[in-house]
């Protein structure tokens, strides 16, 4: 707070000792960033994503993206993070959620994708894509069923959602639009999307295996902060 009689806040700052000034400014910077990210405190990162998985995901998304309006650029060497869509109104987000392995059998595997409460409650989903990497056991066509499961009202179990059948013929990345599933998850206030992959034969373990960091399944979502319905007019 500026000392008495000084009419502008930053003039008060000039009256402080340099170290105190620095502490005040750093505290202001922290408070400003956390409040704009709707975070009460800085997150404690329990299991950071490997750099390989992050860079692969960012590259896949950029390769996948046709419209350049929202580009989650790979941070440049100069540390500059390319901007989303310049001049946008409501704040926009790109969210990368990496799979957490769930239960699995020789013919099926479950993957869980978490979304935080802050984002789930205050944003609308513009687009969401599931990225999967297949490794086929040999020549041929391998039918795969993908189910998107939602938490039931108790939040304890998962109930059947939409189902998609794919024919996998070679190694490589595949994408699936999961925008509707993630949007309904957010509307229900849920935080976890479960994806179940099922294959016909017991060669599934190879097809569904997650071999290394760089081929880790992930969901890339584009979201926009909900604007309050009533806009104050000045």
């Amino acid at each position, binding site marked *: 707070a500026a000392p008495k009689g000084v009419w502008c806040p930053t003039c008060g700052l000039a009256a402080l000792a340099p170290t105190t000034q620095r502490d005040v400014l750093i505290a202001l910077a922290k408070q400003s960033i956390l409040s*704009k*990210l709707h975070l009460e405190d*800085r997150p404690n990162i329990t*299991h950071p994503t490997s750099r390989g998985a992050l860079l692969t995901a960012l590259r896949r998304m950029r390769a996948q993206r046709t419209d350049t309006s929202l580009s989650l650029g790979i941070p440049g060497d100069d540390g500059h993070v390319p*901007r989303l869509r310049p001049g946008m109104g409501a*704040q926009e987000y790109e969210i*990368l959620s990496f799979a957490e392995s769930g239960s699995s059998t020789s013919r099926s595997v479950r993957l869980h994708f978490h979304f935080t409460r802050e984002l789930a409650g205050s944003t609308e989903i513009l687009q969401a894509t599931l990225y999967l990497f297949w490794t086929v056991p040999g020549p041929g066509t391998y039918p795969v069923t993908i189910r998107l499961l939602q938490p039931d009202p108790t939040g304890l179990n998962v109930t059947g959602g939409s189902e998609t059948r794919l024919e996998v013929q070679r190694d490589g990345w595949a994408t699936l639009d999961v925008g509707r599933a993630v949007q309904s998850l957010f509307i229900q206030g849920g935080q976890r999307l479960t994806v179940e992959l099922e294959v016909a034969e017991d060669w599934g373990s190879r097809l569904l295996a997650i071999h290394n960091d760089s081929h880790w399944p992930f969901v890339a979502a584009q979201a926009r902060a909900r604007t309050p319905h009533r806009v104050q007019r000045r």
Partner: protein
Amino acid sequence: GIDCSGDSRMCCRKEFFVDFKEIGWEDWIIQPEGYHMNYCAGLCPLHMAGIPGLAASFHTAVLNLIKANNAEAAVDSCCVPTQRRPLSLLYYDRDSNIVKTDIPDMIVDACGCT
């Protein structure tokens, strides 16, 4: 706008860089490495109302208004940001998801007198 230098007392932009590593935030903010939390400081005596950083014509208009009205009645002119840009962040949220967003108007590029 004018960047503050030495002991300039007039309205100017003070640069202040917050290095995320220095404050122990480099583990959850992936990019960038810091935040240019520049701010505006300095005096705006009446003859400076409307400059720098704003169109000269605006300055003339303001001065004429002050002359036309009783100068004593004129309110103070303040040193405020006249150009700002967003802060683009790539960070981990509480579930270790990775989020990219632009926080609007976070970086002050120029200051001027209202």
